[in-house]
């Protein structure tokens, strides 16, 4: 199956109402190309966290905005890209969460990026004109 390359796209409003649909969208693609349950769970989590961050931070919960999601794969890699037109994310501002400190300070959140980096092999942020793009890659 050398050179087999499949890409699917989904455009959804930026609302947590669509989280289950977004997770199922990437899981369906992964199932169709025969990936195992562990990888499917990991990419469901990664797309959930990335999409949730866009809703909360790029768009400040404005559900009229749109997020475009692409999933693709070839023989070696699976990639998921999310594109929004909201506020940009500074990847340098990210740090590994100190769970104990967050609990003491009653802070929640800020764990999504860490989880994405844990379950995916590569994560890149790009600002293209007025759009933000996060591209997450899983080696197969």
């Amino acid at each position: 199956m050398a050179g087999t390359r499949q890409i699917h796209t989904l455009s959804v409003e930026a609302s947590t109402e669509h989280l289950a649909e977004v997770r199922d969208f990437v899981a369906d693609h992964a199932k169709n190309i025969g990936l195992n349950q562990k990888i499917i769970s990991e990419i469901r989590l990664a797309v959930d966290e990335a999409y949730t961050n866009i809703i909360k931070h790029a768009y400040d919960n404005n559900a009229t905005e749109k997020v475009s999601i692409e999933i693709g794969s070839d023989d070696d890699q699976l990639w998921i890209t999310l594109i929004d037109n909201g506020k940009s994310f500074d990847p340098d501002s990210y740090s590994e969460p100190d769970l104990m400190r967050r609990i003491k300070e009653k802070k929640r959140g800020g764990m999504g990026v860490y989880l994405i980096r844990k379950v995916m092999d590569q994560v890149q942020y790009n600002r293209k004109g007025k759009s933000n793009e996060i591209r997450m890659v899983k080696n197969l």
Partner: protein
Amino acid sequence: MKNFSIATRQNQNVSILDISGELDAHTASQLENALKSLIDNENYSIVVNCSGLDYIASAGLGVFMAYIEDVRSLGGDIKLTDMNDRVYNVFDLLGFPTLYDILDSEQEALHSFND
């Protein structure tokens, strides 16, 4: 919200929350309301039975983080039980097992409260 549900039971002085389905940024508020309501009613010994939980994202973990200090400072605890491996893995990635009592069964949690 069809993909998440929550129910509360009481076993002597311990309150048990049965959670099932998918816990994400959309459904986390249901868990938050249930926990708040227990705490408001002075129920501080809490078991969250996760046997029906198929999925958790960081928004769900955030709810447990927000209340654990209050509950412990009031002499109680939030113990988590009956997780499947996929759900446990997410808790584990963030280091929860060192800070939370995560047990195999509800029975164990009930015993540990009553010891």
